[in-house]
């Protein structure tokens, strides 16, 4: 067992290093971080605009006016989050090369807009907002990577107009950006023109059909979700931040799925996906942290007899309510503890499957596509994510499931601690 764990850690550590510290994945993660405050702002107003029972309280007509008055908040942020992610990625990637970051950001944005068709049903000057949100997510991410890379490449090559001394540095900077910017954007223009004559008609359609649609279809399925959840748990078992590592890969997929749900939700249509960003963040992680350790804390308070167990419960509870669970993971400990390996891996998978089918059966609505800050306490968190009280109840039920799976193992652990403590006295 020890040998096996050693081998596994030797394998997981470089994976964690590569995924977390990779230049592009770091830019991607930080790019989403740039968009996050806007995403949350939009989400807040989606929740306020869709308060349950309000339509019955104030009448349908007033409710429609109320909704449309608030809709700009989310339409300008959450629904077109791709735009902000693109600027963020372009900025952060250029920054990682120690270049003028803001130029990388706007280069990414302009490149993306060059690739975006601005004609809809024969009418010019129109960009459908969906291509700036859900549908444009992947093409946006790739464009931002390429644009920032090209901008860096052309800058590094020294294709800049050198200004004589005495010219104010801001003036010099604006000129120094001119040549690399022109070359970067011209490249994208050529790409755009080439794509115009292909059967795909636009890069947007091409990336959507060839990359995004298959990936999101895969990512919205239960098997991929279980794999992602198991990986998160496995990394954490070795004391590595599983969520941050797995998110580096899955976030674009989960956010795109969330945005597609939001579109449907805003339009009053049936939600197309069950799995999305908030499925993971609320129903898998948002119950005390990765591994849903809120149930473990509750378990400790109910059955803990040993001093050690009680102390860990007291230490872990306040942070656990806000889904920070390092004290439990390192304190119980969960890391490298063969005794808890079974509930640690099993509970989140059971909960994922249970949540999935509860939503598939229509007992609980799927997450609407709003993004709830991950530190929001359980039950509130689930209710906000699904815009329904059922979401909160589901989280409570899930906690019971986790508790039942953990119960025998917690008992054994507590007994061991208790025996040791008695012997010491």
């Amino acid at each position, binding site marked *: 067992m020890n040998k096996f764990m050693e081998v596994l850690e030797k394998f997981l*550590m470089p994976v*964690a*290093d590569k995924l*977390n*510290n990779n230049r592009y994945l*770091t830019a991607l*993660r*930080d790019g989403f*971080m740039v968009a996050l405050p806007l995403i949350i702002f939009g989400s807040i107003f989606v929740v306020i605009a869709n308060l349950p029972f309000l339509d019955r309280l104030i009448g349908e007509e007033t409710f429609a006016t109320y909704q449309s008055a608030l809709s700009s908040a989310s339409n300008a942020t959450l629904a077109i989050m791709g735009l902000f992610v693109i600027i963020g990625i372009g900025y952060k990637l250029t920054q990682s090369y120690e270049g003028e970051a803001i130029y990388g950001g706007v280069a990414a944005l302009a490149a993306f807009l060059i690739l975006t068709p601005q004609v809809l049903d024969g009418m010019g000057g129109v960009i459908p907002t969906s291509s700036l949100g859900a549908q444009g997510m992947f093409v946006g991410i790739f464009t931002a990577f390429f644009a920032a890379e090209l901008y860096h490449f052309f800058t590094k090559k020294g294709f800049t107009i050198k200004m004589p001394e005495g010219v104010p540095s801001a003036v010099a900077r604006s000129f120094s950006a001119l040549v690399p910017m022109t070359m970067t954007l011209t490249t994208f223009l050529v790409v755009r023109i080439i794509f115009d004559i292909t059967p795909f008609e636009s890069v947007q359609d091409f990336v959507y059909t060839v990359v995004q649609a298959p990936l999101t279809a895969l990512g919205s399925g239960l098997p991929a979700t279980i794999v992602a959840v198991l990986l998160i748990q496995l990394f*954490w078992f070795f*004391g*590595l*931040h599983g*969520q*941050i590592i797995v998110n580096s890969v899955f976030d674009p997929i989960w956010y795109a799925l969330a945005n597609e749900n939001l579109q449907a939700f805003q339009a009053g249509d049936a939600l197309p996906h069950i799995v999305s960003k908030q499925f993971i963040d609320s129903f898998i992680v948002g119950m005390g942290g990765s591994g849903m350790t809120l149930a473990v804390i509750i378990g400790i308070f109910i059955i803990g007899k040993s001093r050690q167990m009680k102390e*860990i419960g007291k*230490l872990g509870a306040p*942070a656990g309510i806000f889904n*920070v*669970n*390092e*004290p*439990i*993971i*390192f*304190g*119980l*400990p969960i*890391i490298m503890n063969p005794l808890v390996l079974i509930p640690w891996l099993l509970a989140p998978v059971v909960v994922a499957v249970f949540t999935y089918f509860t939503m598939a059966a229509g007992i609980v609505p799927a997450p609407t596509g709003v993004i709830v800050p991950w*530190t929001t306490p359980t039950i509130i968190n689930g209710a906000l994510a699904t815009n329904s009280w059922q979401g909160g109840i589901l989280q409570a039920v899930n906690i019971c499931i986790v508790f039942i799976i953990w119960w025998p193992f917690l008992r054994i652990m507590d007994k061991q601690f208790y025996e040791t403590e008695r012997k010491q006295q």
Partner: protein
Amino acid sequence: MKILLACSAGMSTSLLVSKMEKVAEEKGLEAEIWAVAQDKVISELPKADVLLIGPQMRFLKKKFEAKAQELNVPVDIIDPVAYGRVNGEAVLDKAMELIEAK
């Protein structure tokens, strides 16, 4: 002394900050201790005497080591047991040890 703690979002390390501050105060030490998310480490590093990384983000050490060496800021991973117990005293001792050794 200035102690910088880092993890993914600076959340769990901030738990440790308050514990460490309390211990420092009890011991009559003047210490500035703060926790940041991983993307803020490089910009905060020049202000710090030592950088301690949460064990769950220990793969960050490699990433920050070069920059830290350049600034002569020692870097280490927080001991997992001390981290789990939110043992401010142990982590503070470790930080002082690292600062003294540099």
